[in-house]
């Protein structure tokens, strides 16, 4: 199971990112947990200043924008 976290202060782009990942995971039948990290100190603790950002199994894989569907599919492969 992949552990995915969306880092962001709860903005519209952060929600869009989480929704996209959930949709792609559902379509792919992928076994994932999706969490949100909204507290500034914890977000920056990942070495991230631009949000939304995505962490997959503890590794930051994307920062600063809503990812594309293709990117998400790559993370779930």
């Amino acid at each position: 199971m992949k552990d995915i976290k969306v880092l962001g202060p709860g903005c519209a782009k952060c929600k869009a990112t989480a929704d996209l990942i959930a949709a792609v995971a559902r379509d792919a039948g992928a076994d994932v947990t999706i969490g949100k990290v909204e507290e500034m100190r914890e977000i920056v603790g990942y070495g991230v200043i631009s949000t939304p950002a995505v962490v997959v199994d503890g590794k930051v894989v994307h920062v600063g924008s809503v990812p594309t569907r293709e990117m998400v599919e790559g993370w779930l492969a």
Partner: protein
Amino acid sequence: MSATTKKDLAEAREVCPTTARRLIAEGALLVDVREPAEVERLAFADCEQLRIPLSEFERRWAEIPRDRDVILACAVGQRSLKATYWLMYQGYDRVMNMQYGLQRWAARGFPVTGSGAGAPVTAGGCCAEAEPTTEPSSCCDGAKAPATGCCG
């Protein structure tokens, strides 16, 4: 994407504008992280400062010295808090955030410059966050007490 290390950052040290002004007079460096258009309208004056917009911070943070006290500031203290945590992530241990930012600084009558001097300060730039709920006239009355003596 390069690998990053997750760090459990300590709570950032925060100071009110009055304490910040004293620390600056004693040698601390002010770093204004507001965007250029905001700085053009209104800026901190009569103090040594660096201007590094938050939008450029990931690229330029290394310009900030590690060997002196550094006070991060923005319009209301939210973006600068993020910048403070970023520097802490990078290993800086002499950084602090100015609570309530330029808005409170100007409200207290401290030196400012720019075309908007005298006008209310608003949080601008990207990702501007909520303004403080406390009255501008009451110093250091926020939920977090500053780590240093306030208004001293």
